[in-house]
């Protein structure tokens, strides 16, 4: 049924329809509304046979989910940013133990400096933890991906993160089609664990593995991820058949007819990019989009197919590897390195810590990539004046102080100068 809902509330409803048996909750902005919503649904009895457990930290949240999953329950939790880092050890354990937990990540920047707003730093920080990572373009997909995530996780016994842009999606209210319980039940059968802690039939999970077998156990983890591509595409196909709309899959292409320039991005920024692409197409520019949904496992072959005819590839990263550049751009470069004709690669770092990614800025950078390419990452809408002033200041004195505070002071001074100038012209 179509409803006008906040993204978090819609996700809570749909996660509820997935019949989770254990929900572990610890609040952190911007994810909190999701577990709050689920708590409400459990309390009112709209979600049955579900244990809602308030825990004392994120580390506990995922640890409890690990225990519940090992005991055969369909387990769910959600977190963001520092919360994900605080549970990092458990994140690796869930994957290494092969426990199909589903976790929503309300994507948010990582400190320091502390920042509660959206970017993909959290998901990128743990991209090598062995989870599947799926990115939602809008709130319909954010809700739908959870149904797919439970099925994907449970079929392969691999935990799955559904990455949803914090605030931009979690706090946005839009039209969302909430499926019927029967539809979800048809698509998502009850959880049938491949390993379970059962007092009637005791086993142990979590053996210590030495040099003689560790490589093999890790290889099997790699193998499972490599064999997931076909299943992920099949689940998207089945989803469309069952629910009548597209969700999930490895990637989605847009406006790719004869596209010479192709943009690659993940998450909600794809919506804004599509609007920009429509406007550029109207100007006769041959530009298209690859919206990457599955980041882990990384769909190398699908990306090669989608990008092999492009002259220029522009990768938008909402995260920064400070010693390297954009992590998605690095991954794409690896995926394309063996193509007969490698496209020109352009890396853009955008939307860090909640900086709005505007249509105007995207128009500029998409045109610039072709006409006036740059080396390394391009930081969208970087305040170069402030950067120059701070670098100059730092060069003058050893004890130059913390960058975050200095930049804030510079911005404050710029604002004051601007107001003074405006008053000057007023007189």
């Amino acid at each position, binding site marked *: 049924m179509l409803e006008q809902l906040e993204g978090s509330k819609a996700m809570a409803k749909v996660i509820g329809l997935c019949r989770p048996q254990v929900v572990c909750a610890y609040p952190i902005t911007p994810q909190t509304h999701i577990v709050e919503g689920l708590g409400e649904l459990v309390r009112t009895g709209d979600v049955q046979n579900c244990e809602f457990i308030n825990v004392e930290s994120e580390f506990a949240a995922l640890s409890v989910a690990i225990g519940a999953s090992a005991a055969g329950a369909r387990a769910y939790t959600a977190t963001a940013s520092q919360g994900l880092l605080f549970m990092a050890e458990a994140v690796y354990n869930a994957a290494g133990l092969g426990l199909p937990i589903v976790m929503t990540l309300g994507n948010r920047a990582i400190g320091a400096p502390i920042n509660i707003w959206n970017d993909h730093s959290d998901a990128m920080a743990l991209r090598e933890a062995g989870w599947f990572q799926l990115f939602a373009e809008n709130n319909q997909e954010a809700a739908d991906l959870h149904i797919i995530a439970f099925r994907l996780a449970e079929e392969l016994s691999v935990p799955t993160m559904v990455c949803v842009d914090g*605030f931009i999606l979690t706090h946005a*209210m839009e039209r969302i089609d909430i499926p019927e319980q029967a539809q979800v039940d048809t698509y998502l059968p009850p959880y049938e664990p491949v390993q379970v802690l059962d007092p009637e039939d005791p086993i142990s999970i979590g053996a210590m593995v030495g040099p003689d077998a560790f490589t093999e156990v890790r290889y099997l983890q790699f193998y499972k991820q490599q064999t997931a591509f076909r299943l992920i595409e099949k689940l998207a196909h089945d989803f469309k058949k069952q629910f009548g709309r597209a969700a999930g899959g490895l990637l989605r292409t847009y406006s790719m007819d004869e596209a010479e320039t192709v943009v690659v991005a993940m998450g909600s920024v794809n919506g804004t990019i599509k609007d920009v692409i429509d406007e550029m197409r109207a100007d006769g520019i041959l530009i298209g989009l690859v919206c990457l949904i599955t980041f882990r496992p990384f769909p190398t072959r699908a990306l090669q197919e989608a990008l092999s005819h492009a002259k220029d590839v522009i990768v938008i990263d909402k995260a920064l590897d400070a010693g390297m550049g954009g992590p998605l751009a690095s991954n794409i470069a690896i995926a394309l390195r063996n193509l007969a004709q490698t496209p020109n690669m352009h890396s853009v770092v955008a939307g860090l810590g909640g900086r709005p990614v505007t249509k105007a800025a995207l128009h500029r950078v998409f045109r610039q990539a072709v006409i006036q390419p740059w080396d390394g990452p391009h930081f969208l809408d970087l305040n170069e004046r402030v950067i120059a002033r701070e670098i100059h200041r730092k060069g003058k004195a050893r004890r130059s102080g913390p960058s975050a505070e200095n930049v804030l002071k510079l911005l404050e001074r710029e604002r004051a100068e601007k107001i003074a100038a405006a008053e000057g012209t007023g007189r």
Partner: protein
Amino acid sequence: MFQVRIHGRGGQGVVTAAEMLSVAAFIEGRHAQAFPSFGSERMGAPVVAFCRISDREIRLREPIQTPDALIVQDVTLFRAMDVLEGLSPSGYLLVNTGKGFADIHQEAAAARLPPGHAQTIGATELALAHVGRPAPNTSLLGAFTALSGLVSLESVLEAIRRTFPGKVGEANVIAARAAHDLVAARMAPDMQTRKDAAHA
């Protein structure tokens, strides 16, 4: 696509106002997207919320920089920030105050807009009278339907009822209707002038 930006302070229901406006548009079968400016939420701090309404799917996620309409829930914000930034020259301006634009030193801003597109309404007083709380958001939405015709009063009233079920909702409905009627009565001569101008 029609874009509305709502300015207010934490505790005045700014985000809820944008959400209710989106629900009203949804009731009319349109696409709508409401979202806050994502600041730290504190009582009294400036808050901005946005609402886009369209007949097509809304994909754009940037904050609204060139609104077609501005609703200002707190008149003291004019001194704190550039509330009017980016307002379309053919846009609408609705300000919560019992006074006129001259009294709040916004005469020039109102004069830049087409006749009748700028209105003030004492929404806090209406809310205090009908709801018993100084939450001006529902009255402003009622007034906004009269000012812009973007969505109907009936849809806004239904959105209010869905957001605040029961007695609270009904009290807000009365406040919103009263605000609508006040602005509609003031608009009526304007409408006549515009018609006369069209016929001249």
